[in-house]
């Protein structure tokens, strides 16, 4: 008698297995095929193009009624198998029991529905089968319908693009920092995000869904941060789980998936399993290529032939029309791995290969994926690429010629109306025109004819590159010192290009300015983070991991790994209550050293990192905020006692100092900024060696700037004389804002001023009232986002992970 083969699940894996089985021996088994869906096997992958309206269901059916009839398959579609009885060798469905000699479980995966309130509301759909697609198509028919897709992975993005193509208003919510984090690095994810946003898809990363809201039907999605997105449908694409329920109930060995050996046999020799429901050598697969291998192996095993499944590398492509994206293998950074990166900002291309011992380990391609298969093939075969290493990234067809790209590409790619010189409002077109029409050959010529680079000079590098581009070999600019080993561009060029190209994230800067590394280094990342904070105060989200430890934990690290804490004492003035609070904190936390600093305040040194939040909480109760003694930002405003007490005092220097400190604290600056206000020219507050100093005189205030008393010693320059405290505040603020916008990271005011000229600063701040007011209001705007006390934030729980070890172990020693 022919053996009875029962298959649970009519999906892609079982379809392929049946083909292989019938090709070799059509009569070996009496086959019964159960499927929970009310239809036979179809190409599930094509649900995305189907949803987008690019194909029809008939075109994606892989096995039709005729095929099943010709092969004598007893089809039991629409019948879910609910139980396996291994003793009796039967499976149970709604219509009763069916016995088997051999059983194949091919139940695929179940979509993961995130456990939030409202997930059961009508209008919440997954993206797994034809029914889901039909539900989405129906929702899209309503005019102005809105969809929220939860999950920015492969599936979610394909759904989002398809729904958008159907005219829906689509928002993607993604938990992680960047899209498709499992397949893409941040640079490629940035390009993908840009592309999707250009199609009108809104993307919200780091989105924690809190609840799905609605009265009898989905109406909106609520995030943890309070954001609400209206939604007529919510597509759950947050991941999949192997569908193992019947196998677990039957007592088969199941880990994440149903555990199988190389022959696809489960812990019960009569039962095989294939497809996404399976775990082989601790790996579960979610792409069809390996599942097809499994199908072939299972067919052979059933027929008693030798066959073994081997783990395989998989490559990913995103099936969204107009996006080319390919990723394969392991592209994580690790020592001894090298990477080759090609970025062509103008063409929107990013390619990255990760190599080890001259073999390709991983590849990420965006924009131009023509060579994906070629790289993947070499990756699988372990080809030694040392011969072609230098030109490998240019792809298979690259023979010889062009070589690495032109370092001037970033400037060449700027549109003609991109502003090059911010001070004088000169765009790229004006400069190149002047160069060709007037036959200019030097920087001086350009300055004389266009005024570009003639003021603050931060655009000098760009102007020189324009000269080089326009004149070619004939021009030889002075070498610019690159920011770090990750780029050829200097600080000034990077700053100007961030503005000109409106770059708003670190991955965006690295992609558009063709960074040579994928993740930057400890030199460029903090600098870029500052430039972005300064240039886009409202839009840029500070990149915590790009800050030096002191700015990350808001305290100063000491040589033994403990920290020091310096609270603000506005203008150096304190009170009995404040001193008592400090004394209590010192006692309570057993702080070893308390010192009066050179900046007129008190430093508590030797605090254990774990204690910091509690120390701040206590200090906060007494009204203290962070003194930013660690920050590239405003440090102290030293004052003297002034007219309140001193017999020589001409103005309220203490009050003015406090006013300035309260106005400017919290702002990030290229390097630290220290100020002082002295009540008369005797200058007890040492204002004439500060970044900014004010000397009060009978007729008003003398503003000084660009002093130094650290590594260099330098007396200040006079900026000018003003009459009122309000004037002081406006001029000093404008000066600091000008510095914030122009200086290079870690460049103190005196160095910046020497570079661009004290006269130019005086001209812009003292003489040009409009410009001064514009600087002032930009500073005021950015303070809206900056004046948050970092200590109280952390005392109430922010960045908790920083202050606690992840785990403590004190297990007993190993037995003798």
């Amino acid at each position, binding site marked *: 008698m022919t053996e009875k083969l029962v298959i649970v699940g009519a999906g892609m894996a079982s379809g392929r297995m049946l083909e292989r089985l019938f090709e070799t021996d059509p009569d070996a088994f009496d086959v019964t095929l159960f499927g929970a869906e009310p239809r036979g096997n179809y190409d599930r992958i094509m649900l995305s193009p189907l949803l987008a309206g690019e194909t029809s269901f008939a075109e994606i059916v892989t096995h039709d009624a005729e095929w099943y009839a010709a092969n004598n398959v007893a089809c039991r579609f629409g019948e879910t198998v609910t139980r396996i009885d291994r003793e009796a060798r039967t499976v149970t469905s709604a219509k009763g029991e069916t016995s088997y000699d051999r059983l194949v479980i091919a139940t695929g995966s179940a979509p993961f529905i995130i456990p939030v309130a409202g997930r059961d509301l009508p209008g919440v759909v997954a993206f797994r089968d034809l029914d889901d697609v039909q539900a989405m198509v129906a929702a899209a028919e309503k005019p102005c319908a809105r969809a929220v897709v939860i999950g920015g992975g492969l599936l979610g993005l394909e759904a989002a693009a398809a729904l958008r193509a159907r005219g829906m208003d689509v928002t993607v919510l993604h938990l992680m920092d960047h899209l498709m984090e499992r397949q893409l690095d941040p640079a490629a994810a940035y390009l993908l995000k840009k592309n999707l946003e250009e199609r009108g898809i809104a993307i919200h990363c780091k989105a924690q869904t809190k609840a799905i809201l609605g009265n009898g039907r989905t109406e909106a999605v609520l995030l943890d941060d309070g954001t609400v997105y209206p939604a007529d449908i919510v597509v759950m694409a947050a991941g999949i789980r192997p569908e193992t329920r019947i196998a677990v109930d039957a007592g088969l060995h199941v880990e994440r998936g149903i555990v199988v050996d190389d022959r696809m046999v489960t812990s019960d020799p009569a039962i095989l399993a294939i497809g996404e429901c399976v775990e082989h050598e601790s790996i579960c697969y979610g792409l069809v290529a390996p599942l097809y291998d499994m199908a072939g192996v299972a067919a052979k095993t059933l027929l008693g032939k030798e066959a073994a499944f081997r783990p395989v590398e998989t490559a990913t492509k995103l099936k969204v029309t107009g996006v080319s994206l390919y990723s394969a293998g392991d592209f994580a950074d690790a020592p001894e791995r090298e990477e080759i990166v090609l970025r062509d900002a103008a063409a929107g291309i990013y390619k990255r290969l990760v190599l080890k011992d001259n073999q390709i380990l991983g590849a990420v391609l965006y924009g131009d994926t023509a060579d994906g298969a070629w790289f993947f093939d070499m990756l699988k075969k372990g080809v030694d690429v040392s011969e072609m290493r230098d030109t490998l990234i240019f792809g298979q067809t690259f023979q010889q010629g062009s070589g690495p790209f032109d370092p001037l590409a970033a400037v060449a790619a700027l549109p003609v109306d991109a502003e090059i010189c911010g001070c004088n409002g000169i765009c790229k077109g004006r400069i190149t025109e002047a160069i060709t029409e007037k036959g200019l050959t030097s920087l001086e010529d350009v300055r004389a004819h266009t005024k570009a680079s003639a003021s603050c000079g931060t655009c000098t590098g760009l102007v020189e590159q324009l000269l080089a581009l326009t004149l070619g070999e004939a021009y030889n600019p002075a070498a610019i010192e690159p920011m770090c080993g990750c780029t050829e561009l200097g600080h000034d060029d990077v700053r100007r290009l961030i503005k000109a190209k409106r770059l708003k994230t670190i991955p965006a800067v690295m992609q558009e300015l063709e960074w040579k590394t994928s993740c930057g280094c400890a030199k460029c990342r903090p600098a870029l983070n500052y430039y972005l904070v300064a240039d886009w105060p409202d839009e840029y989200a500070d990149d915590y*991991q790009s800050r030096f430890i002191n700015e990350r934990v808001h305290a100063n690290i000491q040589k033994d790994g403990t920290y020091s804490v310096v609270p603000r004492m506005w203008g150096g003035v304190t009170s009995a209550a404040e001193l008592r609070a400090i004394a209590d904190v010192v006692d309570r936390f057993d702080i070893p050293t308390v010192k009066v600093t050179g900046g007129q305040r008190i430093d508590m040194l030797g605090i254990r990192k774990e204690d910091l939040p509690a120390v701040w909480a206590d200090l906060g109760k007494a009204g203290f905020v962070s003194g930013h003694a660690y920050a590239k930002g405003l440090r102290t405003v030293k004052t003297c006692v002034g007219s309140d007490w001193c017999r020589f005092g001409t103005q309220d220097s203490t009050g003015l100092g406090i006013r300035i400190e309260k106005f400017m604290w919290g702002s990030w600056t290229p390097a630290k900024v220290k100020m002082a206000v002295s009540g008369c020219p005797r200058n007890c507050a040492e204002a004439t060696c500060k970044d900014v100093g004010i000397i009060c005189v009978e007729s008003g205030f003398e503003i000084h700037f660009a002093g130094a008393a650290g590594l260099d010693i330098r007396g200040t320059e006079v900026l000018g004389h003003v009459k009122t405290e309000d004037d002081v505040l406006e001029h000093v603020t404008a000066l600091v804002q000008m510095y914030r916008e122009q200086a290079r990271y870690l460049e103190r005011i005196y160095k910046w001023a020497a570079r661009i000229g004290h006269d130019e600063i005086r001209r812009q701040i003292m003489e040009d009232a409009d410009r001064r007011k514009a600087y002032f209001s930009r500073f005021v705007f950015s303070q809206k986002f900056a004046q948050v006390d970092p200590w109280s934030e952390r005392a109430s729980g922010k960045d908790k*992970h920083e202050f606690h070890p992840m785990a403590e172990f004190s297990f007993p020693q190993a037995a003798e």
Partner: protein
Amino acid sequence: MSEWIEIGKLSDIPQRGARCINTPIGRIAIFRTAKDDVYAIEDRCPHKGGPLSQGIVHGAQVTCPLHNWVFSLETGVAQGMDEGAARTFPLSCKDGRIFMDTAALQPATAPPLPR
């Protein structure tokens, strides 16, 4: 004897960041890179004892917060001109859970980390 125990979840550590674990042989830093690789390395710079866990993580390297030496997370070896190495420990990460071999943490088998 090797015995792997769970020390935490991948999601406990920020990307391009580190957390510490306290063990009988001293403090060990667990790093997570931008690509979600994890590494365990003694939390003590061979130069002057800086806590490496507090440094900036870039690629599979960390820059010490005290004097900016750069170390490979995989081998613990100082990069560039600087010489020295911090001890590394085997780690394994599966399904977002991080495991460590307790054998490497037994005072009997592993010398304590210098403090």
